[in-house]
């Protein structure tokens, strides 16, 4: 990091390599468009490089980068009004927990439905859910990534969970029932 701040491009290249996967995932989730996510990531790293002098030594780099990338991704989403694209790709995935073909198919379908329902949430709710559940960020890093206090993250996550539950109940109530059956099956 010190070398990158001193202007060493190779050192900054190492940072890009290390964080490009998580940045790309975050951008994919927000923009729901792989090509847009790619552009957003590239621009995000360029902006991060220009802002390196503002980065406080000792702070974690990942949430700082994600803040830049998710802000850009949100702007991209707003400016283009993109529609679902990634959801289809995400829905084709095979969940790692399913043990047989039928359960795998059911789980994949359920994942696609969850992602589709999530699109009805405000972008701020979706962001915290993506950061927490899809990118596995701890609350402290989410706080840096969205520029809020940790307490705000807690309340925003709680509100997002409640809203998602309400949206599911209104749009696809079977999901909640299936979730319950899944608990029973695991027990």
């Amino acid at each position, binding site marked *: 990091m010190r070398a*990158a*701040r*001193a*202007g*060493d*491009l*190779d*050192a*900054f*290249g190492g940072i*890009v*390599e290390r964080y*490009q*996967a998580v940045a*790309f*995932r975050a951008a*994919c989730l927000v923009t729901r468009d*792989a090509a847009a*996510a*790619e552009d957003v*990531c*590239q621009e995000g*790293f*360029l902006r991060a*490089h*220009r802002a*390196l*002098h503002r980065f406080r030594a000792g702070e974690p780099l990942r949430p700082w980068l994600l803040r830049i990338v998710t802000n850009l991704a949100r702007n991209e989403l707003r400016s283009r009004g993109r529609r679902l694209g*990634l959801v289809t*790709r*995400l*829905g*084709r*995935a*095979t*969940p*790692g*927990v399913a043990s047989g073909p039928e359960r795998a198919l059911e*789980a*994949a379908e*359920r*994942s696609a439905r*969850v*992602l589709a329902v999530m699109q009805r949430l405000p972008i701020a709710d979706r962001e915290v*859910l993506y950061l927490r*559940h*899809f990118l*596995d960020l701890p609350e402290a890093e989410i706080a840096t990534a969205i520029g809020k206090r940790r307490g705000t993250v807690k309340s925003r996550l709680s509100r997002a*969970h*409640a809203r*998602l*539950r309400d949206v*599911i109940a209104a749009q696809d109530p079977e*999901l*909640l029932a299936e*979730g*319950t059956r*899944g*608990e029973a099956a695991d027990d």
Partner: protein
Amino acid sequence: MTDADRARVERLLAEAARGAAYPPPPALRARVLASLAAERARAGGRPAVARGRRRTVLTAVAALVAAFALAAVAAIPPARTAVAEFFGLVAGERIERGAVVPSNLPAPARPDQFARPAGLTEAAAALGAEVPLPADYGTPEGIFIVAYGGHPLVILQYPTFDLWETRGESFVVVKRVPADAILSIETVRGRPAYWIESRAYEVRFFGPDGVEVLGARRTVDRHALIWRGEELYYRIETELPLGAARDVAASLP
């Protein structure tokens, strides 16, 4: 919301997250570094992170540098089309794509056909400094000196690559490559570099007056990694891939 509801929602989210298959992440390193190197070149070589509060002054400097560079390029007709592609990243290097058809070029020549053998002492005298040798590759099989328009260039010949070194700041080397050549902007030791991966292409050498140096035109049928270090200009010609060429560069002192 009850705890049971929350647990169900979190369970659904966890399942959706596990099932998420993202498109493969793009290889952003080269693209980001190329953009940064271009920014740096436009800003007169200073790192972007150091610019910060002096943006206004540097914008003026960048404009001045750009104006000089454009004027220099404009003086050399074959180089004009290269401006849009690789403007000014490696000083003295211009690349013109689609300007040659490999089958129409003369046969490539090796250093022993156009340069004269020399020892390390003479090569050092030509460079005006100790000759940098790649540490991990032993003694060069051959050392050659060629003078283009009175400008000395040292060529170190190894089994799998030739390493060119020179001190020139005022010359311009124009590469005329076929349309299907692979051109990429890399970094070598933190400095912008060009990588040319191509069938045969042509190299021309222009003096500070913008006039092509007679006898310096040649055909190259190997890849090339080109960059300008603190003091010297380097060129590795090789059949090896980019990674191997970078290894050679990394082992220079």
